[in-house]
């Protein structure tokens, strides 16, 4: 009887120890946990992009109104010519640049800008360009 009880106690001890020592599965998967935050960040990002697009901005905005060769800006910038000193001259130095909000907005404006197809067609016709 005694030896049976001893074996019994030994087995129970093993079971208990095994149960404690075995690693538990995580309560919730980390990626699942992070998902709502990611979604929120992506939504925010999209909203920001839409906002920027609506704004237009810079000289990309309202380009459609400008035609021909002359503009006030051309006059203004005609003398703003030489500024080569201190310009980034390597991929490393360009890579080190931290773009400002205005730089990012300029990219958005660039993306949002398009010339209507009939105007491009007129431009090609004026230049006697016969595209295939």
């Amino acid at each position: 009887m005694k030896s049976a009880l001893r074996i019994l106690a030994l087995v129970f001890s093993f079971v208990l120890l095994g149960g404690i020592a075995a690693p538990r599965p995580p309560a919730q998967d980390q990626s699942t946990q992070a998902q709502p935050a990611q979604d929120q960040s992506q939504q925010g990002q999209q909203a920001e992009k839409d906002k920027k697009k609506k704004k237009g901005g810079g000289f990309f905005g309202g380009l459609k109104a400008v035609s021909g060769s002359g503009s006030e800006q051309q006059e203004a910038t005609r003398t703003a010519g030489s500024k080569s000193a201190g310009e980034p001259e390597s991929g490393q130095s360009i890579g080190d640049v931290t773009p400002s909000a205005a730089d990012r907005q300029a990219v958005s404006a660039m993306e949002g800008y398009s010339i209507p197809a009939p105007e491009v067609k007129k431009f090609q016709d004026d230049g006697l360009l016969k595209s295939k």
Partner: protein
Amino acid sequence: MKPRMPLRACRWGVPILAVFALLVSARDASAQFGNILKKATDKAEKVQKAMAPMTLQEEREVGREVSAKFIGAYHLYPDSALTRYVNMVGSTVAAQSERKEISYHFAVLDSDMINAFSAPGGYVFITRGALALCEDESELAGVLAHEVGHIAGKHVIHIVERDKAMRAGVEEAQTHTPGSAYLENMSKKMLIKILDQGLAPGDEFDADQRGVRYAHAAGYPADGLARFLTKLDQATEQGGKSFWTRTHPPVPDRNARIGQTISAQHWEDTDRPKLAERFAAETKAVKPKA
């Protein structure tokens, strides 16, 4: 005398308990195995993603970050008429590109250096210095078409796809806003690779071939790029600064190949419009005063 447990109960009790213990341990082992399996699956998915071609969305994310750095470094040239003109010429040659799913965008950078850049996703830049070096619209068309050729040929994209570390950055970037550490780091690596180390000579020759093809198909004389390259070579010999001569194959080699293509295709288009007058009128702001 103590009562004794029946011999049969004692005999069966131990094996039953042992089986019970084994079952409990098996349950835990199964949970552990499940975890290992899940981790392995996640890793395999990541590897599979890293091996897969970049999506257009990923390409745009990368291009947007690189473009922001170009603009941050040189600033846009604030001339809407000139920007419109460059977009007109750019759109004309880009319409001939094989990648119709891309929207191409063109801008002028306010730099004296003689450069043109492209970023994945359809972003093309030309510097004020490069515009000043062009003598007619067909040369500008050739330069822009060469850059469009890089985008159409996915030359930079292939570098990212080959570089697993860079690619991991793109994957992570999906969950981050523009300017995230991942995109920042990856675009920096990309700029160093493209501008300091240079693309493979084969990629440059390919962009030349594509550029010549697009310009010709758009109605320009096909040799505009070659004429520009000859002037670029001379300009850099006289102290002009350009990434093109620093990292690209030698101009004589490039022009020889362009010449071979034109001859092989029998493109007798020397009578096509070079549009020097229109170009001069549109770009007078960037031309040095006589």
